[in-house]
């Protein structure tokens, strides 16, 4: 049986220090690449080289689609869905395009594997909803509504 060929997507964190509570430092790109390769192997696949790197809070360059084609990848493994995030928004359009190119997306940190149309569609609803929710939560209008709310 042919092995699945994963294109890896690492994330260049904006700060090397403490990307989130409980984590002492951000993983280096080399560490991420090793982790992605291991995860690809565990799924019966292999990580193709080179990996693509997204910059934190800037999103992923759509050139990743050409890389998928050039390298003959039939799956993508991202360190995290945050690789596709710019501000409050995850790039659902690019996520959809990656899906259309490969039909298989794995997310290492989130421990998610999207393997069929139903699981992808469900995940895309989550992405769309969280985009809406995050934008609303951080809006001035929402803060003003909460401040003026008097339920009791």
């Amino acid at each position, binding site marked *: 049986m042919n092995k699945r060929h994963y294109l890896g997507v690492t994330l260049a964190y904006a700060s090397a220090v403490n990307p*989130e509570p409980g984590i002492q430092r951000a993983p280096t790109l080399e560490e991420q690449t090793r982790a992605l390769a291991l995860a690809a192997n565990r799924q019966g696949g292999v990580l193709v080289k080179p990996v693509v790197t997204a910059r934190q809070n800037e999103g992923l360059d759509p050139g990743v689609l050409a890389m998928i084609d050039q390298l003959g990848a039939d799956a993508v493994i991202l360190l995290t869905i945050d690789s596709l995030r710019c501000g409050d928004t995850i790039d659902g359009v690019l996520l959809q395009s990656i899906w259309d190119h490969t039909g298989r997306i794995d997310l290492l940190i989130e421990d998610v594997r999207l393997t069929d149309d139903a699981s992808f569609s469900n995940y895309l*609803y*989550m992405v769309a*909803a969280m985009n*809406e*929710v995050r934008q*609303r939560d951080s809006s001035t209008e929402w803060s003003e509504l909460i401040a003026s709310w008097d339920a009791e």
Partner: protein
Amino acid sequence: MAETSFEEFEQRGYCIVPASNRDALASLRVHIRDVAFKLIGAPAGDVDIDLNTLHKHFATPEQSTQFRLELTKAIIEHKDVGAAVFEAFNEYLPRLVGNDVLSQRVPNVVFQPPGDPHPTELHRDAPANSPYEVVVWLPLVDCFGTKSMYLLDRRSSREALAVYRANPEDRAAFQSVLESQSVQLSVPYGSALLFWPALFHGSVVNAERESRLSLNTRFKNLFAPLGMKDPFRYFSILHTSPLTRMGMQFQREEA
């Protein structure tokens, strides 16, 4: 949910409700017992006795903790535990969180053998959790006395927080509020405690002669405000309404 329970929930921040689907709950409990006994390597018998005497399989608190961690991973391998909990209490939960539901991906398992020196410290979930979540605390055995948990209702939690904020160093004042106003809850198997994550809660050393095994898991509306926890790691979609799916597809195609 009986209107009384709703009123209680809003007034006190918690209520205890019986399962609306007992079969779903029983099936979940048997699943967890089966997985637990497979991990232990012991033959299963009566489910109630098996779970109440679970502590007899472990010699040290460290072994119990290791077992709990393994059980947490193993119970979700072949069953959507969040979906099973939601189904068991489907008369109540949709009325609190609606029809577009996020479910905690990995429910927490709590195992407290008699005398276990690691009860749950006093804390509240929100923040960092969203105050728009509901916590389902689900005992898999009858929980009473020190085998159960305690909490402070909305008013007392607010008062405790005010005391703490006024003088964070004055542990005695905070302890006084806690001791005078906390409620030790009795929750029999077959029921669940639904509570608001902004309530202070915790447990004490289990001084009963039986084990406590319980789950706690959280649900929120898909469109409710987020807390500080990353929703993509913490939650997954359990349900969406047909109308929501149609609206989102429309936005994707035409926006």
